[in-house]
């Protein structure tokens, strides 16, 4: 359960990057060329990349902690993610 806030922070960290890059991309394409279909496909792309990249780390924050090795590892993963994505600041 200690890892739950880290999940939230990592999600919003990634979503900020996604939203900023998406905005830039839409501006590059330009209002006129940006059809609904393209907007949808590009939005799916951005979600697809982020979701698939986050899958591993997030999964490793949610071990059931039934044996102590798993719990220790899960906490180590959490500490590493907090460090690497500066999630504590």
């Amino acid at each position, binding site marked *: *359960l200690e890892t*739950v*806030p880290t*999940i*939230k922070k990592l*999600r*919003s960290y990634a979503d900020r990057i996604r939203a900023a890059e998406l*905005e830039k991309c839409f501006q590059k394409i330009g209002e006129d060329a940006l059809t609904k279909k393209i907007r949808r496909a590009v939005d*799916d792309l951005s*979600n*697809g990349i982020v*979701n*698939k990249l*986050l*899958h591993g780390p*997030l*999964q490793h924050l*949610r071990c059931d902690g039934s044996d102590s090795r798993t719990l220790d590892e899960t906490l180590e993963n959490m500490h590493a993610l907090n460090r690497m994505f500066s999630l504590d600041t």
Partner: protein
Amino acid sequence: PRKQQLMTNLRTGKNYLRNQDPEKALVEFKAAFDLAETLGDHVEEKKAARGLGASLQRLGKYKEAIKYHSKVLEISKRMGEDSGSTEAYGAIADCYTELGELEKAGKFYDKYIARLQND
């Protein structure tokens, strides 16, 4: 014309949300939601519910936000079409995290994580 009004509300709501004005976004999404319910338009109702959830979340109204994010899941189930469900599970979990209900948050994150490799 009501459908057109609905689409305008959705678009305006999204713009307000993007420009960090969740209060104004909320008004637009609420109008869109009511219209979509009246018209029985579940596709747009889902978008409005997602917008309402996101706006309420930005305003710190987590319990109400959960209500609308859950609505997204409910409509998806009813329509047998689950676009937006992954994000809804994640958003509900975020809200529970904010409310300090970590146990519930964990349960919803599990559902969210299990869906991340799908499309």
